[in-house]
């Protein structure tokens, strides 16, 4: 198992190189001229454009641009955005915001998703199950934008329970409302998968053993059935967690949280290869580590799963 984990960690290096290159190439292939776009309404002097292009090596061929970027990256120099912000500084500023928001949301979403999913799967067609169906549909039909602004104007503006926006009040105050909304919007997937997965196990023979042992239905559910149904569930949570690292673009925008999602989004709009690649690399590592952990968890949760 440790050798398996080690192998998975080692293979991250070549994959990382491949991904950085692909991402770099893709950003390169994006249409548009970032320096031109920098100007906003006021056009830039051609000489300034030329100077900036030279500074950022934008006129070099793709490969040498990439090598240049990687060279700097390996020296720990993340470079600057086209409008002159220090990328490293920006990341340091934004990661905590995204992580606080994402993890809080994930926690809420997981709790909601599991509770709903577990009880819906355990008592199919019961009250919880029907409520879940309704909630899922609502979440799918109502756009996140609407929910978020609605929550903001009701809970923050009218009732004043939460700060309207920004992260000035720190965790948890500033993050509670956006995270809750994000969590509620995202819980349906987890809940539905938990539901089916649980339903698959609910009829197993060991449930009967549990009853024969005089265990309460709750104990049978939580101690016996759940663990058997957990493989797809933790897989999904892992996917969610990995997604969390990328930040929530819309949420961060609406709640004015300076997170990774907004940064990434803006950087893509500006063809900021450096930012996009750096973030993608972090995401890749995060994703692969999360997946590795999930894969290792398989073996712990279900001893019949063995890694070779």
């Amino acid at each position, binding site marked *: *198992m440790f050798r398996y984990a080690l192998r998975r960690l080692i293979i991250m290096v070549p994959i990382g190189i491949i991904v950085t290159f692909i991402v770099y190439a893709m950003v390169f292939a994006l249409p548009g001229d970032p320096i031109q776009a920098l100007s906003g309404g006021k056009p830039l002097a051609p000489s300034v454009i030329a100077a900036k292009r030279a500074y950022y090596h934008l006129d070099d061929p793709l490969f040498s641009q990439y090598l240049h970027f990687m060279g700097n990256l390996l020296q720990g120099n993340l470079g600057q955005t086209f409008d002159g912000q220090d990328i490293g500084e920006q990341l340091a500023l934004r990661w905590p915001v995204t992580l606080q928001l994402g993890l809080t949301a994930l926690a809420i979403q997981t709790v909601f998703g599991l509770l709903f999913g577990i009880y819906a799967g355990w008592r199919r067609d019961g009250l919880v199950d029907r409520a879940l169906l309704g909630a899922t549909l609502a979440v799918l039909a109502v756009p996140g934008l609407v929910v978020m602004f609605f929550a903001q104007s009701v809970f923050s503006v009218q009732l004043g329970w939460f700060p309207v926006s920004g992260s000035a009040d720190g965790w948890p105050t500033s993050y509670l409302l956006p995270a809750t909304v994000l969590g509620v919007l995202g819980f349906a997937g987890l809940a539905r998968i938990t539901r089916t997965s649980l339903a698959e196990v609910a009829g197993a*023979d060991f449930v009967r053993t549990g009853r024969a042992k005089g265990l309460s239905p709750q104990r049978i559910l939580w101690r016996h059935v759940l663990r058997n149904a957990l493989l797809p569930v933790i897989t999904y949570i892992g996917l969610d967690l990995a997604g969390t690292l990328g930040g929530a673009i819309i949420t961060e925008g609406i709640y004015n949280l300076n997170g990774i999602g907004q940064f990434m989004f803006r950087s893509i709009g500006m063809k900021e290869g450096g930012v996009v690649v750096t973030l993608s690399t972090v995401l890749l590592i995060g994703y692969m580590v999360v997946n590795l952990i999930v894969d*290792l968890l398989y*073996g*712990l949760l279900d*001893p019949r799963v063995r890694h070779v």
Partner: protein
Amino acid sequence: MSDVLLQATGLAKHYDTAPRLRPGRAKSLVRAVDGVDLELRKGESLGIVGESGCGKSTLLRLLCALERPTAGSLTFDGQDVGRLRGAALRRWRRRVQVVFQDPYASLNPRMRVRDIIGEGYDIHPDAIPKQGRRRRVEELLELVGLEPAHADRFPHQFSGGQRQRIGIARGIALGPDVLLCDEPVSALDLSVQAQVVNLLLRLQRELGLSLVFVSHDLGVVRHVSDRIAVMYLGKVAEYADASRLYERPGHPYTQALLSAEPSLDRIRNPDAPRRRRIVLAGDPPSPVNPPSGCRFHTRCPVVRDVCRQVEPELAQVDGRLTACHFAGELLGADDGVVNASGAGREG
């Protein structure tokens, strides 16, 4: 030796129950099967008996190449089974079928009995023409004492014995050369058991089927088997013709085993004292750390010093193979059961 169909040489299987990220649990190798030599002749039936957990099921899994042996080799008709790959392996599989010990777990819960039994025909379409399959499956059901109407049910709707019979029907469906049975009749009542045993024997007689028959029911094993291998802790302790073995067991473990067979004596003669049973002293040893020397020495009623150091080889004694230093001596004694040393308790 041309009639030897299946030959195992030094077959061993060790399971690595490595710690799962849990500290304080040393790496441990379970020596489930630890060097077994066997041969199965064509048309012969070989019984395997032995203590629970001694590696019988594991041995069967090795014999049908479901598990890769840790050591040793398996040949079928002179061909190295370990080398078979792809289509050749699949063709070979058709000739060696298994009836699993756990009837329920080995049936796909989402398949109807008809599809379970007929699956072999899907896999080997040349086994039987398509039109005849349905009938054939129903015939097989009847052969094992079930109703054709059962064909459309799912496994969970059957009783334990019925499931076991579904497994048997699947095992014989393809008309294999070798049938490996892991306790195929343990959950059957005597009458159905008799039917199934008769069926197997008739297949053996008429079609030359070779049987490997694992069972704890010594009566059934005796009835079915031509030869019997007695296993103890991953090894063969004694290997002999059935009648010879039952009449004069040569290994102390075999003796203990036979003496423990429950009987109807109490009914036959309610007033008679219960039969003497050799109850083995001490705990059964663990396959993780098998005892040194003779594996049986920790519980052997006739143990001597040499047993603790030297591991006895399977040796020819009195027309059988026995892995005991004192087999000759034991068989020399008049009474099969040695009462020496008082290690045998009365039961």
